[in-house]
């Protein structure tokens, strides 16, 4: 029997889960169709605030309406709620999974894509912005190669403070090395920690999120995002396992 072929996103998720597992991160799950609280309100994105405009959102025709999640940070919220219920003070998880954005598709945008969101929470002082940077440095070196470097730029995501944009220095074979914008991240806002039922005076954490397709495109040289979810085996077989 000839061997089958894994989808590049599944292959990437395996690599990512393995790398993060070495840093103590588990893999967590949550619904793709979320309630407004877990996708937005718990993350300090109230309905009447311009922060809602940062993500183009689908809504269901339900009462109450639900949202095909715009990020898997909703999974992080659920994990922190579970921490609070179970009285734990530590949590490290990633959620490499599908998210949705209501935006026109082109070579770099799809209405559905995969995001690698994650969160690390621990007693105040044990999880810091420096740890966020160290976590990214470890991850990108393992995933993209030892020459990868990480830098932060000031940015804003409603659920973190400080918030940063993450650039990675990537030396692609046969290409000019350059800085690429790969993720958003920051230290969890104390209100978010409180919204999850935890005490921001005792625990702190970081959260991050970035598109997985984009990383796969960078690493494997995929020119157009639209192949990933087109249900086309020609795309899947376009990645050569022998050359890995």
């Amino acid at each position, binding site marked *: 029997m000839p061997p089958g072929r*894994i989808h590049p*996103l599944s292959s990437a998720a395996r690599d990512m889960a393995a790398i993060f597992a070495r840093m103590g991160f588990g893999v967590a799950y949550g619904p793709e169709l979320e309630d407004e609280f877990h996708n937005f309100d718990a993350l300090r994105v109230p309905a009447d605030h311009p922060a809602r*405009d940062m993500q183009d959102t689908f809504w269901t025709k339900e009462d109450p309406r639900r949202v095909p999640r715009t990020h898997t940070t909703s999974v992080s919220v659920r994990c922190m709620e579970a921490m609070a219920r179970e009285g734990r003070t530590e949590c490290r998880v990633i959620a490499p999974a599908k998210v949705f954005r209501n935006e026109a598709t082109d070579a770099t945008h799809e209405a559905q894509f995969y995001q690698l969101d994650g969160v690390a929470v621990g007693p105040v002082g044990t999880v810091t912005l420096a740890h966020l940077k160290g976590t990214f440095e470890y991850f990108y070196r393992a995933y993209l190669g030892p020459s990868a470097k990480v830098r932060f730029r000031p940015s804003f995501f409603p659920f973190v403070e400080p918030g940063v944009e993450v650039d990675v220095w990537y030396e692609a074979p046969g290409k000019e090395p350059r800085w690429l914008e790969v993720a958003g991240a920051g*230290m969890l806002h104390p209100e978010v920690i409180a919204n999850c039922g935890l005490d921001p005076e005792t625990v702190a954490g970081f959260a991050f999120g970035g598109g997985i397709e984009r990383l796969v495109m960078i690493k494997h040289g995929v020119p157009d995002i639209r192949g990933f979810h087109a249900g086309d085996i020609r795309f899947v077989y376009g990645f050569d396992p022998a050359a890995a």
Partner: protein
Amino acid sequence: MAIIQKASRAWLQKYFDAPLPDARTLADALTFHVAEIEEPASPDSDLVEVNVLPDRAQYLLCHRGVASEVAGALRVPLARDPLAEPLPEWPATDQVRVTLGDGANRFIGALVTCVTVGPSPEWLRAALESVGQRSINNVVDATNFVMLDIGQPLHAFDAGKLAARDGGYAIEVRGSRAPEAITVLGGTTYELPEGTLLVTDANADGLPIGIAGIKGGEAAQVTDGTTTLLVEAANFDGARVRATAQRLKLFTDASSRFQNRPSPELVAYGMRDVLALILDIAGGELVGVTDVYPQRTAPAPVSVPLARLNAVLGTELGIVEASAALDRLSLPYAVTGDGASLTVVPPFWRTDLQVAEDLVEEIGRAVGYDRIAGAQLPPPGTAPSLDRFYGIERVRDFMLGRGYAEVSTPSFAPEGAIGLENPLQQDRPYLRASLAPNLADALARAALAAPRVLGPDRFAKVFEIGNAFTADGETLMLAAGVAALNGKPSEAAAALREDLDALEGELLGMPSMAQCTGDRTVAELCLEGVNLEKLGAGYAPEPRALGPYRPYSPYPSALRDVAVWTPAGTEESEVANAIVGAAGDLLARLDLFDRFEKGEGDDARISYAFRLVFESMERTLSDADLDPAMECVTAALNALPGWEVR
């Protein structure tokens, strides 16, 4: 989405004595200090485009705001700061009466007589055009200039078009009463949903003269004949302005500012600057000002203990460094708690500074995030759980091991149980209730692509693992399909049945649950009943690393077969090399599909039959491409001693 604030370097320069650096240096400095800047077209570009995110939009959507950040980023002081300069004492007037309803935080109305409306002076036209705005007339340009300069939206009404009673004007800000409509500047008429915040002429039965915080009405438009102005500087509730702008789909420079909730304190500074500019360039005389400000707001002090600062950033900053960072941002502070804390009294325009973490960010970005050294997290207290993930990967590995290719297909569908309010594709307005239809489609296309992608296999096999959405909830599903490439669908159905029996029986240990569809070549299985954690415990997914991607042709491939007699002892590779050497660049794939030997001794021969797959990245191939290629192949094979194309 960020709001792009277009700033002009020449305009920013007015805030500094020292010359500003070139556009690229400026862009870099701001990008690492406060906000992403669009790549400038050239080092000489005048335009600086700042991606302003909602947290800083209360103060950064103007040249003064950008200049304040330039000062911090380049460590050069502002030569002047209009928000630090004193406000004048205006004469009060009973000729402007203002009544505010809910949603209006402050309203200053000023009456100016004897103005001359006309073209703007050249410097003003140039300033507006430098940031992509059109000059209209001196009065309107003055309101726009001040908004772009210090961020306060402003509006001028032609008082001559308002109703005067007892020699005075009466403005009321109120919610609309259905059905009400307004024609705004530019001539568009809007039917107003009940409760829309309006600026109205109370002397004219409450005639709407503006949609509060969004756009002025045509009824009191300033034109060339205007001689008396009622100038508005106001502050409206951000949520209401935002809701109205969204409902009317009317997004303006004013609405984008108000929805980000600038301080009502700014209103007076806007009035000060616009009155000075109007009197300067349009002449006239200020009669007086009415300021209604029901609830004065002032930012509360915010403190951050040094220990907290370092616990968030993972740094060891001392009080001197942290204080220097606040100095650079011109944030006034006091060292409190015996040097253990910093307390900032935010200037009125920094309404974003509310909790300690906000100060952590200010200090962090001013110090520079490049100063933060990466650190590894300590080992976790408990080992991470990946069991569910491994359980799903185990199912995936099983399917891959049975020869299936994994696909991903859209979660949006033509039919389903849960509809979308705002679908992107009108023909896919539901979330999928089943993975089977998409999989059947992927399977049909896989069968077409199989000769090119899979070669001469008997079957094309595809699967997808994903979520489906039904009235009962969201479920993790596996869909699989098999196509027979040169056999009957029943053979494909049998192969699928065998694989699913193995999956359910051998791996999952559950009774046969998979639902087959159509001709039984596609089946779907709900994985919710499977204990995935248990399945994954201790499982190590097979390494399945992938190499570089090679794009496929968007055009269909074309097939040709060739069979050739060769002398005994001829290797398959010799034939393949001969074909590859003759077939040309369009040959994309070559597969042996038949080989047999015939005869004995000197008569012994071997027949090889190959399938050639041709493909172009540029076009669909025709016989005109393939026939010459096949003639070359035939000629090349026949030319070899003892070879004969059959």
